[in-house]
């Protein structure tokens, strides 16, 4: 891959105080293939990769496209591959990369739209499919005057971890199964389905099972476990998927014992 022009910041900062960022560039109107462009960015102790990218955009090359918003690890917009690892760039400090060169690419596994911006439609559709909201049976809805659905701290503790997902998609990027088979429902969507399945107020598990226990659901997962390693919020989607497998297996055995009769 051809590397483009090398930019040097010429405002009194010497090269030794700078760090090289190799950025994945792809312009759908011009490029058949992506290329990498190098930029020299001032090295600052308290800068994260996102600061460096913002610097490039503001000072060196305004054509660079990427997503970001909160810059504090909450919005989940700035996920990128940093030296081959899926990271929230707002939480990846320059000082932790001692090699003097940082390679930034769009999150792996998704189609690239432009530069570091990838298409997330597939994830959004999967998220919608698993119905990540409280579902009640047809006659299960309480009337307003009956009051709220009560939940004990112990009931909350069962699923709370899975509520912390910020939809940053790092887990999809770390998952080799998703990279090889994009039909796989994937870690975050399954973890969120599990979050509602385990919520004592929810009655929608059966509706979610079609997607979760279907051909492209939990059984595609071979427990690589990388989704949980890269998760910036410690949601542990790998555990959520394995637990969903246990529940589905229990359903299967219950089905045998009751000879498939409906409850």
């Amino acid at each position, binding site marked *: 891959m051809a590397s483009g022009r090398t930019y040097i910041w010429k405002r009194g900062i010497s090269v030794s105080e700078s760090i090289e960022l190799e950025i994945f560039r*792809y312009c*759908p109107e011009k*490029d058949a*293939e*992506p290329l990498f462009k190098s930029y020299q960015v001032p090295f600052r102790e308290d800068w994260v990769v996102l600061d460096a990218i913002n610097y490039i955009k503001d000072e060196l090359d305004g054509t660079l496209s990427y997503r970001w918003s909160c810059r504090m690890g909450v919005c989940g917009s700035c996920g990128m591959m940093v030296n*081959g690892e899926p990271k929230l760039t707002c939480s990846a400090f320059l000082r932790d990369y001692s090699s003097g060169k940082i390679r930034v*690419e*769009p999150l*792996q*596994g998704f*189609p*690239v*739209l432009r530069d570091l911006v990838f*298409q997330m439609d597939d994830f959004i559709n999967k998220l919608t499919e698993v119905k990540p909201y409280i579902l009640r049976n047809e006659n299960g809805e309480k009337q307003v005057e009956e009051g709220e659905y009560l939940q004990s*701290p*112990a009931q*909350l*503790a*069962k699923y709370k971890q899975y509520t912390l997902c910020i939809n940053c998609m790092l887990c999809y990027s770390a998952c*080799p199964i998703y*990279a*090889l088979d994009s039909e796989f429902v994937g870690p975050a969507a399954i973890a969120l389905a599990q979050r509602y399945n385990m919520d004592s107020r929810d009655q929608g598990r059966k509706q979610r099972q079609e997607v979760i226990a279907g051909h492209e659901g939990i059984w595609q997962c*071979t*427990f*690589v*476990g*990388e989704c*949980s*390693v890269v998760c910036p919020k410690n949601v*542990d989607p*790998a*555990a959520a998927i*394995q*637990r969903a*497998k*246990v529940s589905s297996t229990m359903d299967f055995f219950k089905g045998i014992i009751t000879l498939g009769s409906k409850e």
Partner: protein
Amino acid sequence: MKTYQIPVSNTWWLKKKSYFFFVIREMTSLFVAGYCLFLLVFISKAAESQQAYTELLVSLKSPVSILLHLIFLAFILYHAITWFNLTPKIMVLHIGEEKIPDGLIAVSIYIGWLAVSLIILWIIFGG
């Protein structure tokens, strides 16, 4: 809209240590299955005749057989240990609001393993 799909190479599992060890773990299943087949052969020889069984026992004492057993043992141990270590992720138990620590669940499985192994050793050598 035109997009670019970054291709996945056939060597993706060599690019990251964790992917590599995952593929090794998957591969160890073949050794587990292979040894199960061997045990079936073992039983069928024992059922066949005293002579067939004795011949099998003799052939098992050959250096090649011992080497193969050591290789199988290594892979099957890798299989068992990696799965045991993953079990706390699958078995998440709560006492009230408190989650039972992962280490405790893993240790209890190892204790179970040890107990079963001791029972088997007792049956073979002590009983």
